[in-house]
């Protein structure tokens, strides 16, 4: 899932039928909720340029709508006075902006070197298998789980490290995988 410009979007199938700027449509017109609006207003006071607020504004958008759709790109671009093409270029450069809806639990398994040395690849495969033979990045039919492979989560001492949405989980092994998954409701 991780990657700069070098990474084709290989982990999120069900992905961009190339549209206007490659982004998927959510089919709705979007605008920020009052809470998001307040956060956005505060953001703008923290930077000397509007453009600098782009990454945090995209975070607000993702928290609001779960993923970054074409409409979200257009909305954010308008709010910051940027072109949609530029915003989409930024969205696709970073790995954490979801370009398609994801499951309620986004299970991110680290497979970088320290986790690799502790069997992370096996955990990643077993995890997908147990949740219904999911492909990397695929969401389970009930919309509950999406499993992706990520890079070093800076908890290499707790290898294999897994993050579910924003929460860290330590030492997820083949032995405790079932118990770990059953905790995710």
């Amino acid at each position, binding site marked *: 899932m991780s990657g700069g410009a070098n990474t084709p979007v290989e982990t999120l199938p069900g992905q961009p039928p190339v549209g206007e700027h490659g982004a998927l449509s959510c089919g709705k017109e979007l605008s920020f909720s009052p809470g998001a609006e307040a956060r956005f207003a505060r953001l703008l006071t923290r930077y000397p340029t509007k453009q600098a607020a782009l990454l945090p504004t995209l975070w607000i958008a993702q928290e609001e709508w779960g993923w970054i759709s074409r409409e979200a790109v257009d909305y954010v671009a308008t709010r910051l006075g940027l072109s949609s093409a530029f915003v989409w270029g930024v969205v696709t450069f970073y790995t*954490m902006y979801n370009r398609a809806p994801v499951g309620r639990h986004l299970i991110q398994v680290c497979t970088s070197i320290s986790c690799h040395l502790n069997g992370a690849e096996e955990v990643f495969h077993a995890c997908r298998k147990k949740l219904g033979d999911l492909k990397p990045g695929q969401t389970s039919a009930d919309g509950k789980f999406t499993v992706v492979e990520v890079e070093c989560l800076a908890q290499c001492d707790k290898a294999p490290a897994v993050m579910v949405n924003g929460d860290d989980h330590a030492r997820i092994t083949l032995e405790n995988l079932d118990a770990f998954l059953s905790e995710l409701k």
Partner: protein
Amino acid sequence: MSDFQPVLSARLGKKNSCALATYVADGGYASWKKVLAGSKTGEWTPAKVTDVVKASGLRGRGGAGFPTGMKWTFVPPKEKRGAKPVYLLCNADESEPGTFKDRILIEKDPHQILEGMMLASFALDVKHAYIYIRGEMVHGAEILNAAIDEAYAAGLLGKNVLGSGMDLDLTVHRGAGAYICGEETALIESLEGKRGHPRIKPPFPAVSGVWNAPTVVNNVETLCCVKHILDRGADWFKGIGRNERNTGPKLYCVSGHVEKPGVYEAPMGIPFKDLLAMCGGMKGGRKLKAVIPGGSSAPMLTAAEIIDVPLDFDGVAAAKSMLGSAAIIVMDETTDMPKAVTNIAKFYAHESCGQCTPCREGTPWLHKMLKRIVAGQGKKADVEMLLQVAGQMGNGMTICVFADAAIAPVLSAIPKFREEFEAYVTKSASPGFDQPAAAGITSKVAERTAEGMHS
């Protein structure tokens, strides 16, 4: 050395270690208050703070080991920079595989970082400092924001801090998943709201960084050291460590096949074998095979090469590797070296920002080739080919040092564990890569490398 008391990690295990009240109870913000009060009497000036940091011998803890005080002096003086503000950016984009020291500082002692940033801001005449934290550290960002709110409420940040006349704002900026943003100029681009593409240098950030203004980028641990240096003095800091080029306390991130992986604090220059003993030795009592001493981009060292090495900038450099982020990745005798190198190559193939051809094309190529070798589909000449291609990707032909980082594992592991790579290809029944095609890629990389020089 045995009487060494933890400095940076001293408060991590305490109850409510993130709260302002406990931090202050432990003597926190004394230096900030001291310097601000002294600035009114003339006892403390920005130059004096810089001099203390210089005298301490502090070298950057993010990877390069550049002297921090000297880095600060590269910012042009007020007369030269005119109305332009100076920015301080705290690099909290910790993402070098194997590195997890900044994360614990962020999650367990955020005020220590803030105080370091305040003191650095004073020294550099900064009015707004930013913490660029990697996107994955969701809780870390929350903790920092809570600490910053507390500091504002206590008058330690904001307008006219503690009546000193100095204004200082601090903002947390979350990344969104891109390893390259740990590189200073990529971090700057990312903070500006762009893709994290490293910039061509010069100009260096100290002269023209974020928003074209003079900018200093310092690592989390470095800024924590600044706080302690102002607390206890340059001589105290210099008294810790192996020699005067390698000073101070250091956080080591030990992961891989040891009994007790974790962050360990020791005087700079602790010999590898002593650090290993602190970690309870090798997991299951197995034999040490190799170590990557400075994050995945540092050249690999064999057991014999690393065992007595003092873990500091010059000690590890003398062993022909680098201390980098002090991410000590320990591998035991069961480690399949070609697979480990393939894993690292995959990381770099994913994370190249794509600006420079040797890097953009070379990194996925190395990964693909390694993948075929470990899948049993390589052939003998492939091993040599890997070295050749890797050899053409570095040498300063790229905008940033990422390409050099990407080839280090390949260039170090193959000569040292050649028989393991060859075992894979001799076992293989497949014809593997067809030679002309592979050679074609090699020359393509070489060609583009030459082009890259003009950029």
